């Protein structure tokens, strides 16, 4: 078909110019009509807080705890008609993004919240594998971020805009080693950990260092590993039992803890088994049952026998959502409390987001002795809090009882 032929054909079937003109007019009328009634939304200064949580993916329970804690925090602020800064109240909005428990999705979510939603502060992501790359994004855009749960030192190191809400593994490892030494007076320990997962591996190594420092080289008689999703630990456990260890340290997540503890008892392990903050989920006892009763682990807070604000939070959470909050929810709650404190003390909200972010970051770094439900917090230069760890004993009823508190010197 040549040019003129197609041209005449087109003219026969449609009148192009009037058709396009029609579209133009309709579009303009429609959009102006809409504009009139939606101008009411306007652009006023709203404080937006971003929540970057794993709502779908591997650890949805963590995402759920984060989201519930954030919504409770928002309800409190709405009761108060917003956050008061310099005598003026500003409304608060939450921007909750799902990071699917994936690193690149967490990066996308952070970029979106910073550039699109113009959030003032980001709370999350929780796991280190997302918090490390997402922290890089936040730092590059000069947006303050606090990860309530990430224990990897890389998350905050050399990043002035990134904070965290929990203690680090280099602190937790020695705390547990010292606790075992003082409590049981043992000299031989064993460790069983997941070599392919960042958190257990790091913690196992810090524990090893601390243990060998106080008991001499060779005192850690077994250092056994497995890989994620293994379910049979009998060969490692047999080796551990044969090695003559008096105590077993298992820095694993709840699903593996149940399997390891039960299999160890089946194989005839008699001594205590000690865990880390990853045991803190309510699921640990549900899955493990009686085998876990009487064991110890270190964590951020103890739900059973809590007092004051901690108890108020637990009761409220349990009433609204039907179960006792785990450490993620409590740490998220505290992180949001820190954020609120920082915003209230930032001086002035100007509405220019870049300036406000700087001001809030500076206020955050200056916080001293913040009284949270997981303990008192003061930030170091790196943005890591100095706070105490809690040793919890699983009671004979399966509750997490406060046993003692260990603070950094």
């Amino acid at each position, binding site marked *: 078909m040549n*040019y003129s032929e*197609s*041209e005449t*054909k*087109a003219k026969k*079937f*449609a009148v*192009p110019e009037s*058709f*396009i003109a029609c*579209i*133009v007019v309709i*579009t*303009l009328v*429609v*959009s*102006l009509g*809409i*504009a009139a*009634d*939606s*101008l*009411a*939304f*306007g*652009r006023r200064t709203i404080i937006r807080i971003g929540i970057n949580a794993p*709502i*779908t993916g591997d650890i949805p329970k963590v995402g759920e705890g984060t989201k519930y804690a954030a919504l409770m925090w928002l309800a409190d602020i709405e009761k108060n008609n917003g956050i008061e800064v310099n005598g003026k109240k500003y409304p608060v909005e939450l921007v909750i*993004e*799902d990071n699917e428990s*994936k*690193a*690149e999705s967490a*990066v*996308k*979510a952070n*970029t*979106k919240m*910073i*550039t*699109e939603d*113009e959030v003032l502060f980001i709370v999350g992501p929780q796991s*280190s*594998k997302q918090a*490390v*790359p997402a922290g*890089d994004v936040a730092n590059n*855009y000069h947006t303050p971020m606090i990860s309530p749960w990430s224990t*990897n030192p*890389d998350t905050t190191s050399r990043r002035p805009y990134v904070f965290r809400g929990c203690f680090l593994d280099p602190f937790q490892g020695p705390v547990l080693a010292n606790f075992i030494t003082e409590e049981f007076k043992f000299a031989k320990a064993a460790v069983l950990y997941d*070599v*392919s*997962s*960042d958190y257990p*591996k*790091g913690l196992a190594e810090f524990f090893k260092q601390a243990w060998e420092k106080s008991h001499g080289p060779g005192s850690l008689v077994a250092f056994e590993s497995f*890989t994620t999703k293994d379910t049979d630990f009998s060969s490692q456990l047999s080796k551990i039992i044969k090695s003559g260890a008096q105590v077993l340290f298992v820095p694993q997540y709840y699903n593996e803890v149940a399997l390891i503890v039960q299999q160890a008892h089946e194989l005839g392990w008699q001594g205590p088994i000690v865990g880390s903050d990853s045991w803190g989920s309510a699921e640990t006892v549900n899955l493990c049952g009686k085998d876990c009763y009487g064991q110890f682990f270190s964590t951020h807070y103890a739900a059973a026998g809590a007092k004051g604000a901690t108890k108020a939070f637990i009761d409220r959470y349990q009433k609204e959502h039907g179960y006792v909050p785990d450490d993620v929810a409590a740490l998220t709650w505290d992180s949001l409390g820190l954020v609120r404190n920082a915003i209230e003390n930032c001086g002035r909200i100007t509405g220019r987001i870049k300036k406000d972010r700087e001001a809030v970051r500076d206020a955050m770094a200056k916080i001293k002795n913040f009284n949270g439900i997981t303990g008192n917090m003061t930030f170091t230069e790196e943005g890591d809090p100095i706070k105490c760890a809690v040793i919890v004993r699983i009671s004979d009823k399966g509750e997490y009882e406060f046993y003692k508190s260990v603070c950094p010197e």
Partner: protein
Amino acid sequence: MKSPIDKIKQLFNTTPLLAWLLGWLAAALTEYFIGDAVSYYLGLPRIPVLFGCLLALKKPLLIPGATGYFLLIYLLPFFLVARLCRRPANYLASLLARGPVSLAAIIHLALFYLALHIWADISDYRLLLLKLTMVAVMLTLSLNVINGYMGEFSCSHPGFMALGAYTASTVTLRLFADDKLFGAPLLSPALGPYLFPLALICGGIVAALGAVVIAIPSFRTRGDYLAIISLAFLFIVKSLIENLEFVGGPRGMSSQPDYAGLPMVFLGMVSCVWIINNFVCSTMGKALCAVRDNETAAEAMTVNTGKTKIVTFMFGAFWAGVAGGLFAHIIRYVNPGSFGIQRLAEILAMLYFGGLNSVTGSIIGAVSINILSEALRPLELFKWIIIPLLLIMVMLFRPTGLVSFTEFKAEKLMRPRG
């Protein structure tokens, strides 16, 4: 009497690709200059980033505003300019058709890039999304070479990607960055952006070498065996990296230098599409299709089947490695956990959604799944119901994917239409 859709089709069937690109450029420029003002008057909080999808799903009250914005800023300039430019564009296209194809392709690509660049300039979120989509295109296309054109079922693509990502990261961190894993840089960091393509090629080569390791034992058999061996390879690569302390073990590697800008990623994607398209159209590509349909018959027709298969497998792995290197420098963090079964499922979904044996299909599959999964982000859990449902529908109604068994011909695409 013709239906209105036919009338509209009639209106635009003399419009060449060049005019469409100009229309797209016009839309991008309109948004660049008046997007903010228009979004203000439509009561939107700001320029809608993904054609208003995110806004519409989060705040249904803003749907009319977002639709109005889409009509005014995108649809209107796009069709108006495409329609108005068709005569000069046809004239230009017929001029270009006389010259070499590569010149015409470069002009079209430059125009396309310009429009993309302006579009991505509005927001960094868009930019990131665009870059990751381009990487996904590369991954899907390179898997199509193996799973589509060669007709095998390989599961090791995330493994190749991991090899590429770690190699490229090691090279750039060692040579150009002051890093805590490797210490002070060996070369001046100023050289980095120029030598970055070499780092990517290194990544690709290591991935191709990995492919040889699988190819030698598995090509003695056919069918399910390759799937199993390649799956095993994926696990081997993952646990190898987890146990290699000098690349960070399970903690991963972070703070790669920021070399993967939009031009770099675009160049990577274009060369990937261009070279793979030439490969599958070459004699080798035809031999490959013969091997897929009947290996014995191909052998009888003097095709060296062993060589064809190994070269193809390495070729596919090479591009997966390059894509992995780009991915590592976009996210600026890699950990072994990113290259597991989940990633494999994503790539396979994009491949089968788009269509086997088709360069166009791979591009469509990767872009649509990526954009869709971002646009449906506000739905959280329901996103994971909608996307799989879509996949099931595609598999039911078009079992080989949306666009399959077609050839991508640049000349045909760029020809004048009037």
